[in-house]
C-alpha cells in the first residue's frame, strides 16, 4: 500500500503533464457518465471554484500566495446581490440588465479587497498567509454585518437569477452542445476566463514576467522589469477572476446569499486553492479539477434527492474530505521558489 502510494507520488512528480492529463480525462469521463441534469449542475457549481483557482494561480505564480481568495468570493457574491437588489430586481439600468451591473459591482468590490491585500503584502511586507486569513475573516464578518443592515437578517433577499442563453446552431452539437452552448452566462464566463487565463499566462510577455516574478524575482528585476508592478497586476487579476467567480455564482446559481456561519461560499475558495495545487498551476487543469470537486458537490445533491439514507451532514463534507485526499496524494506541490517572500529591489 505504502509502496503503491509512493509510486503514485513519484509518477506525479516525474510526469506532471501526463498525470494532470489523465486526471482530466478521468474527470471528463466521469462527468460524461452522469445524467444531464447533474452535468449542468456540476458546471454551475464549478464556476466559483474554477475562476477563483485561475485568480489564485496568477497571484501565487507571481509570488504572492493569496489565501484570502475565499474572502474575495464572499464579498463579490454578497455585493453583487446587494447591487441587484438596490438597482431593482429583474429590472434594467441604462438599457443593461441589473444582473450585469451586479456582476460589475461584485468584480469591483473583489478587486478593491485584492488591492488592499496587495498593498499590505507588497508595500508593507506583511506575512501573506496571515494577511490572507485577515481578508477572509473580515469578509466573513462583513457579509452578515452588511446584510443585517440592509435586510435585518444575515441572509439577503432572493433575486431573479440569470437565465439560459442559447447559442443558435452550436447548441445543436451532439453531447456537448446543450452543455456548453445552452447554459447560463456565468458558465460562458468561466469558459472564456479559462481561455483568457491560459493565454495570458503562457503566451504573453506579461505571463512570462509573472512566472519569473514568482520563481526568481531578482532575475526579473535585473532584466529591468519592476517586480512590484508585476505582483500588483497579478494580485489585482486574482481579484478580477475571484470577483467574476463569486458574483457569477451568486447571480447565476444561488440567487441569494446566506451570510451566517461559513456563508454560502462555504470554503469554495480554499477548495480552489487545493484545485490549482492539484493542477500544478495550469489554468485548464484547474478548471478540470474544479469539475471534480463540483461533481462531488452535485453528487451530494443527487444522493440527497434520491433519498439515500446517508446522513446529509456527512455527505456535505465529501468535497472537503476529497481535498485532503488529493493533497496527500499530490504531496508537496512545488510552489514557485519565491512564493511567500517579500522582494525588495536593490537588495544584494
Amino acid at each position, binding site marked *: 500500500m505504502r509502496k503503491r502510494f509512493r509510486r503514485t507520488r513519484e509518477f506525479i512528480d516525474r510526469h506532471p503533464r501526463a498525470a494532470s492529463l489523465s486526471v482530466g480525462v478521468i474527470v471528463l469521463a466521469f462527468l460524461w457518465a452522469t445524467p444531464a441534469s447533474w452535468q449542468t449542475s456540476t458546471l454551475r457549481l464549478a464556476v466559483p471554484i474554477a475562476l477563483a483557482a485561475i485568480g489564485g494561480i496568477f497571484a501565487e505564480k507571481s509570488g504572492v500566495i493569496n489565501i484570502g481568495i475565499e474572502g474575495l468570493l464572499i464579498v463579490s457574491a454578497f455585493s453583487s446581490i446587494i447591487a441587484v437588489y438596490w438597482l431593482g430586481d429583474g429590472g434594467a439600468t441604462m438599457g443593461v440588465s441589473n444582473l450585469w451591473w451586479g456582476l460589475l459591482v461584485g468584480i469591483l468590490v473583489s478587486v478593491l479587497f485584492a488591492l488592499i491585500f496587495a498593498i499590505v503584502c507588497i508595500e508593507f511586507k506583511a506575512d501573506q498567509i496571515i494577511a490572507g486569513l485577515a481578508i477572509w475573516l473580515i469578509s466573513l464578518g462583513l457579509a452578515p454585518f452588511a446584510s443585517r443592515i440592509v435586510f435585518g437578517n444575515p441572509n439577503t433577499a432572493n433575486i431573479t437569477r440569470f437565465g439560459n442563453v442559447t447559442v443558435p446552431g452550436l447548441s445543436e452539437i451532439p453531447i456537448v452542445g446543450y452543455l456548453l452552448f445552452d447554459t447560463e452566462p456565468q458558465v460562458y464566463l468561466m469558459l472564456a476566463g479559462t481561455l483568457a487565463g491560459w493565454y495570458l499566462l503562457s503566451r504573453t*510577455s506579461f505571463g512570462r*514576467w509573472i512566472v519569473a516574478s514568482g520563481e526568481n524575482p531578482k532575475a526579473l528585476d535585473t*532584466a529591468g522589469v519592476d517586480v512590484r508592478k508585476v505582483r500588483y497586476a497579478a494580485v489585482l487579476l486574482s481579484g478580477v477572476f475571484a470577483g467574476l467567480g463569486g458574483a457569477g455564482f451568486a447571480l447565476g446559481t444561488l440567487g441569494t446569499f446566506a451570510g451566517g456561519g461559513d456563508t454560502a461560499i462555504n470554503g469554495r475558495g480554499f477548495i480552489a486553492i487545493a484545485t490549482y495545487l492539484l493542477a500544478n498551476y495550469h489554468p485548464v487543469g484547474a478548471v478540470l479539477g474544479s469539475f471534480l470537486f463540483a461533481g462531488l458537490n452535485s453528487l451530494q445533491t443527487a444522493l440527497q434527492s434520491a433519498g439515500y439514507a446517508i446522513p446529509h451532514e456527512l455527505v456535505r463534507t465529501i468535497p472537503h474530505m476529497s481535498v485532503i485526499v488529493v493533497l496527500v496524494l499530490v504531496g508537496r506541490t512545488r510552489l514557485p521558489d519565491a512564493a511567500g517572500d517579500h522582494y525588495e529591489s536593490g537588495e544584494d
Partner: protein
Amino acid sequence: MTESGPGTTDGAELATGSEGDTADHGTDMGQTGTKTGTGTGAETGAGTDLAVHLDGITKRFPGVTANDDVDLRVERGSVHALLGENGAGKTTLMNVLYGLYHPEEGRVVVDGRERAFDSPQDAIDAGIGMIHQHFMLVDSMTVAENIALGNEPTKWFGLAVDREQIIAEITELCDRYGFDVDPEATVEDLSVGVQQRVEILKALFRGADVLILDEPTAVLTPQEVEGLYDVLEELTAQGKTIIFITHKLEEATHAADAITILRDGESVGTVAPERTDREDLAERMVGREVLLEADSDPVATGDVVLSTQNVAVEDEWGVDVVSGIDLDVRAGEIVGIAGVDGNGQAELIEAITGLRTPDEGTVTYEGTDITDWSRRKRIDAGMSYIPEDRHKRGLVMPFDLVENSILGSQRDPEFAPDGRIDWTSVRDHTDDLIDTYDVRPPDANADASSFSGGNQQKFIVGREFERDPSLVIATHPTRGVDIGSTEFIHDRLLELRQEGVAIVLVSSKLDEVRALSDRLAVMYEGEFIDMNDPDAITEEELGLLMAGEQLDEGANSASSASPADIQGGESR
C-alpha cells in the same frame, strides 16, 4: 595586518594604495601619473581606448569604507581581472559600475563619457552587462525565455511573444561567438557551465559591450573553466571587454590581460600577468607574506573511529549521488575529502552525521553499526559536526549565543537534567566558549545574526569542539571566514588531532585540505576516485583528479593500487 612594501623580485612596480593622495580627484587621464597602477606593464598611458574608467571611487557603508579612492582602467577588447580577498571591495566596486550603488566620490566613465547610473537599467543601456555569481535565471523556463526576459519582442500588437524572432536572434549570437546552446532547453536541465553561457548570452542579447563576471569559476569544474577561458577569448576577439572578479591567483594570471588588486577597499596596483607571479600577487592581495603550510607534526594514530562500508545515497529522483564509499578514519588523524562542490560530499556527510539515511551500505562508529541511529543518538555518542551552512544549520540566527550554545546538547544532562534547561550553567558555558574561541564582540546576549561570518564560525567551532568529541566532521570550516579566523580554526583542528580525535575535513580549498590532511580522498560524481598522501601530490594533479581524470603513472603519482579504496590508513 602590516602594509608590505613591494619586496618582490620581478620588478613590477607597486604603488601601495593611495593614502594621502586624495588631492588629485578628477584629474584627467593624461595627468594620472601619480595614481595607483600607472607605470606597471599593462598600463599604457593616456590616449588608449579605455572601455571603462573608474576614477577615484569611494563608497562607504555605515562603519565601513568598502572602496577607498579606487581607480580602475579597462582597455577595450581586453580581459581585466579584479583580484582580492573576500571583503576587499571587489563586488562593491562592480556594483558601482553596474548602477546598484552610488559612490560617495569619484567618476564612472564608460566609452569616454562620464555617467551617473541610477539603476542597473541605465548601466545596461550604456552597454554594461553583469553575470552574477548566483545566476539570474529562472530555472523552470527555457533558455530562450530567460534570455529575452523583460525584452521580449512581440507580435500581434503586443498580444503575443514573438518566439521565432527570439530563437533567430539567439541562434545568430551563438553562431557569432561559437556557443553551443539549445534555445529550447529548460535551464534546470543544463549544466552549470552552460547556464553561465546563457547568462552571457542574456547580456549580449541586451547589447552589452562590457561584461562583468563575478567569480565566474566558483561553481565550475576545471574543464568548464577551460571552456570559459575559450569563451572569453572569443568575446574579446570580437571586441567585447571583460572584467572578472576573482580571488584565485591562477585564474588571474592565466586569463587576464591586466590585473588590478584590491585590498581592504583600496587599490594596490595594476599589473600585467607576464610581469608578476603567484607569490607576488598573493602577497599584494593579503598584505604580508603568506604561509599556507600549517604545522602538522605526525601523530600516532589509534583505532578506527569512523568507518563506512559501501555507502550509497540516492537523490529524490532515484539517481545515485553517492556510491560505494568506503572510508576509515582513525583516532588522531585528519582525513580530507576534496572535490568540486556538488559531487556528493554533502550527501555523504549527511549520511555519516545522521541527517539522512544511506540507501545502501553501513556506517560504523567506534565499532558499532550506527546506520539506523538518529541524529540525536549520534550527537550523544560524541560526534561533532561543523555544518557547511552556518546560517541555515549551524546557528539559529534569531537566537542569542546563549541559546545557540546548546544547539545539539539541549538534552545533554549537563545542561538539561530531567528535561529542564539550567540556563545559568548554559550561560557560564557560553561565556567560556566566547572567551576560549575569541568570539568578538564578546556579548553572549547578542543575536547570532549580528556577528560576522568569522566570529559565527568560531562560535560553532567552539561549541562543537568543547563537546569532547571522539569524531569531528568539519565541512568547509573556513568558507567565507577571514584569514585570522581561518588560521585560528586550523590550529584548533590540529590540536584536536594531537589529542587523538578522528577528523573528517571536507573542503573545496585545495591548499586547506592539502595542508591539514594526513590522508586525502578526492570525490568525483559520488565516488572516491583516489586516495593520496597529500604531500606527494601537486595542486595541479589534485585539480585533475577533481575533474574526474585519472593520473598517469608518473613520478608524482601516489595513487594506491586500488584507487577507490581508502581504508586502513597506516600509522604515521
